[in-house]
C-alpha cells in the first residue's frame, strides 16, 4: 500500500487515495486562472473593441464559449472532483473503488478541456450555450463520465459505513443528472467530423438546450457545490450541520423542482405558453429549497461566528453561501414574466450569473482550497495574511462586477423599451444605448480583474505552501479525521 504523505489513513485503517485529490486540486487552480483571464479579456473586448485583435481566433464570439466552458467545466468541474474524491473516501471510509478509473477520469477530463481550448478559437462549436463542444468531444465526455460514474457508484458499493451522508446525495444527483442532460441535449446527426446538426429543430431545440443550460447551473454549479458545503463547511466550522431534516427536504425539493425551470430562458418566445408558465412557476418555487440549503449552511455556523472574523476559510464559505442565497433569490424574481421582459437580453443576466459563479462557486472553491491545501500536503499555509487579502479583493471585485451589471442591465432594458410622447421609440438608435454602457463595461472589467488578481494570489500562496518546508508541528495541519 501507499505510504507516502499523499495517502490519508482513516479510522478504519482505510488508506485513501489523496494523490488523485491533489491532481484535481492543482488542475482547479490552474484552469481557474486561465478561465478568469479569458473572462477579463472578453470583458475588455466589450469596453474596447480593438482588443478583438482583428484575428479570427480571438474575437468575442469565439472566446466567450472558451471562458464559460473553462470556468464551468475546468474550474468548477475540477473542484467538484477534488472535493468528491477527498470527501467520499472519508465519508464512506474506503479508498476509491479503482485507482485506474480515477486516473482515467482525471487525464480524460483535462484532455477534454484542452480540446475545448483548441476547438473554440478555431470556430468549432455547436452554438448550444455550455454545450458548445463538437460531437467527437461530446462522445469523449460521455465516456469519461461513465468512467467517473462507475468509480463513484463502485466506491459507494464497497463503503464501510451503512448510511450515506447528505454530501453524497448531492454528488449522486450531479453524476446522474449531468449524464442525462449531456446525452439528451447533444443528440445530433454528424455532417463531418467537425460539424453536426441537432435532431431537434427550432423552439423544441431551444427548449431542450435551455432545459440543459439551466440544469447545468442546477446540477453542475449547485448540487455538487452544496455537497461540498455539506462536507467542508461543518469541517471548517467544527460544528455539526444545523438540521438533518432540513437537508432531506431541501435535497429532494431542489432536485425535483430544478429540472422544470429551463423555460424561464424562453419567456415571451414562440415556446407554447403552457411550457413558459410551467418554467416560471417552478422557478419561483425553487426559492424555497434553495434557501433551505443556504439556511442550513449559515445556521451551521451558530456558535462559530467569532471564528469567521479570523479564519479565511470560513470567510470565503460564509460569503459563498450568502451569494448562493442572493442569486437564488434574484433568479426566481427574474423568472417572473414581467420582470423577465425587462431583464432578458441585458447585462443584468450577466450580473446574475456572476453573482452565482464568482460569489457562490468561486468563493466556495477558494474556501475549500484554503482548507485542503495545508491538509493534503501536511504543511501550514505559506501566507495566511495573503489569503485574507485575497478574500477582500475577491469580495470587492464581485460587488463592483454585479453592481456595474445591474446598473447597465436596467439602463439598457429601460432604454430599449422607452416610448416617447409621439408613440415612437425614445432611443431609436441602438448604438447610442451601447455607448452609454461603456463606463459600466470598464467598471465590470475592474471588478473581474480584481477577482483574477485574487485567484493568482491564491495560486502563488498554494505554490509557496507546497514547495515550502515540511510542517514541524502537527497542530497546523492535523491528521485528517476519518469523516
Amino acid at each position, binding site marked *: 500500500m501507499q505510504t507516502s504523505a499523499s495517502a490519508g489513513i482513516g479510522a478504519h485503517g482505510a488508506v485513501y487515495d489523496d494523490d488523485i485529490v491533489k491532481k484535481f486540486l492543482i488542475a482547479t487552480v490552474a484552469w481557474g486562472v486561465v478561465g478568469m483571464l479569458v473572462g477579463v479579456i472578453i470583458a475588455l473586448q466589450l469596453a474596447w*473593441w480593438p482588443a478583438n485583435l*482583428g484575428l*479570427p481566433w480571438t*474575437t468575442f*464570439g*469565439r472566446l*466567450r464559449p472558451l471562458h464559460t466552458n473553462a470556468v464551468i467545466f475546468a474550474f468548477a468541474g475540477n473542484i467538484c472532483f477534488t472535493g468528491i474524491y477527498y470527501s467520499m473516501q472519508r*465519508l464512506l471510509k474506503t479508498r476509491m473503488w479503482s485507482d485506474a478509473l480515477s486516473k482515467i477520469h482525471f487525464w480524460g477530463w483535462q484532455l477534454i478541456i484542452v480540446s475545448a481550448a483548441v476547438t473554440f478559437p478555431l*470556430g468549432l*462549436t455547436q*452554438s448550444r*450555450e455550455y454545450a458548445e463542444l463538437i460531437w467527437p468531444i461530446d462522445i469523449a465526455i460521455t465516456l469519461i463520465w461513465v468512467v467517473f460514474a462507475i468509480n463513484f457508484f463502485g466506491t459507494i458499493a464497497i463503503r464501510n459505513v*451503512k*448510511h*450515506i451522508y447528505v454530501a453524497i446525495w448531492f454528488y449522486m*444527483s450531479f453524476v*446522474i*443528472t449531468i449524464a*442525462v442532460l449531456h446525452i*439528451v441535449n447533444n443528440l*445530433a446527426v*454528424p*455532417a463531418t467530423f467537425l*460539424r453536426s*446538426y*441537432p435532431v*431537434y*429543430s*427550432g*423552439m*423544441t*431545440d431551444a*427548449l431542450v*438546450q435551455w*432545459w440543459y443550460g439551466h440544469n447545468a447551473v442546477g446540477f453542475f454549479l449547485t448540487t455538487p457545490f452544496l455537497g461540498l458545503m455539506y462536507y467542508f463547511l461543518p*469541517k471548517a466550522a*467544527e460544528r*455539526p450541520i444545523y*438540521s*438533518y431534516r432540513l437537508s432531506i427536504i431541501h435535497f*429532494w425539493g431542489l*432536485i*425535483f423542482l430544478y*429540472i*422544470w425551470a*429551463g423555460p424561464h*430562458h424562453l419567456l*415571451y418566445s*414562440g*415556446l407554447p405558453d*403552457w411550457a413558459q408558465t410551467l418554467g416560471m412557476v417552478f422557478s419561483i418555487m425553487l426559492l424555497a429549497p434553495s434557501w433551505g440549503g443556504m439556511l442550513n449552511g449559515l445556521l451551521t455556523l451558530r456558535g462559530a461566528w467569532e471564528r469567521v472574523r479570523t479564519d479565511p476559510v470560513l470567510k470565503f464559505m460564509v460569503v459563498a453561501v450568502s451569494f448562493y442565497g442572493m442569486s437564488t433569490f434574484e433568479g426566481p424574481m427574474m423568472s417572473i414574466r414581467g420582470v423577465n*421582459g425587462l431583464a*432578458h*437580453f*441585458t447585462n443584468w443576466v450577466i450580473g446574475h450569473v456572476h453573482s452565482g459563479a464568482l460569489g457562490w462557486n468561486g468563493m466556495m472553491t477558494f474556501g475549500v482550497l484554503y482548507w485542503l491545501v495545508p491538509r493534503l500536503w501536511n504543511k501550514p499555509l505559506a501566507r495566511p495574511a495573503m489569503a485574507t487579502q485575497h478574500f477582500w479583493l475577491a469580495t470587492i471585485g464581485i460587488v463592483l462586477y454585479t453592481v456595474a451589471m445591474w446598473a447597465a442591465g436596467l439602463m439598457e432594458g429601460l432604454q430599449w423599451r*422607452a*416610448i416617447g410622447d409621439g408613440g*415612437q421609440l425614445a432611443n431609436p438608435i441602438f448604438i447610442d444605448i*451601447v455607448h452609454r454602457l461603456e463606463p459600466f463595461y470598464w467598471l465590470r472589467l475592474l471588478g473581474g480583474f480584481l477577482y483574477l488578481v485574487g485567484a493568482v494570489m491564491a495560486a502563488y500562496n498554494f505554490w509557496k505552501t507546497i514547495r515550502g518546508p515540511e510542517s514541524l508541528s502537527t497542530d497546523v495541519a492535523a491528521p485528517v479525521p476519518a*469523516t
Partner: protein
Amino acid sequence: MADETKHHGSEKKYGQFHRRVFEANAVNFAVWATIAILIGGIVEIVPMFTPAGPEISPDVTPYTALEVAGRDIYVSEGCYLCHSQWVRPMRAEILRYGPWSRAWEYQYDRPFQLGSRRIGPDLHRVGNKYPDAWHYEHMRDPRSTSPGSIMPSYAWLLTKRIDPADVEASMVALRKTGTPYSDEEIASVEQSLAAQGGEIVGRLQVAGIESEPDRAIVALIAYLQRLGVDGRAALQKRGVEY
C-alpha cells in the same frame, strides 16, 4: 463528525424513515433521485412532439445550399452571443425590429439561434433590410456602416472560400434530421451555390465591390438576407400587421 449529526424529537422519526429507505440503500436512493430529476423534463419536452408543441407552417421553406453555408458561418463565429433572433411581442420591440417572432418561423432552424443576449441589435427581421453591399462593408469594417459600433471586424470572410462538398455534407445531415430536401436539391448543391452566389456577386458589383460566388462573405450575406423573410411574407398573406 459531519455524518454523526445529532437529531432529536420529531426530526428523529422523520429521519429514521429516510435513513432506512434511502441512505442505507444506495440503489434505492439512485433510482428515486433519477425519477425525481426525470419528471420535469419529460412533462415539458415530450409534448413538444405532439400538437401541444410549437406550431409549424407550410409557409416556411428550408434554407438553400448557400444559406446553409452562411448559417454555418453564423454559428461558427458565435454571432448568437451578441445578436438575438427573437423579436418579443412587445410594443417597443415591434417598433424597433418588426413583427414578433413566431414559433413556426424557426421550424428548420438546426441548431436554433434565438440567442440570449443583445450586445448588438436583434437580427430576426434583418433580411432585406439593408442592401447586400451594406452587409459586405459591415463585415469588412463594422464602423464603416455603423459609426461607433463595437463589433469586431470579420474581414477574413471576404477571402475565405466555402467548399461545395462540405455544404453537401451539411445538407445530407440536415435531411437525416428531417429537413425536407429533395434528391435533386442534394444533387445540385454546386449549381445552386453558384447560381445564388452569382446573384449576390452581381448586386455587389453594381455597388462597385468585386467578389466571387464561393466566398464565405457571400454565403453569410445570403443567410442574413433570408432572416425573417418567410415569416414576414406569411404574416402579410394572412393580413397580420405585426
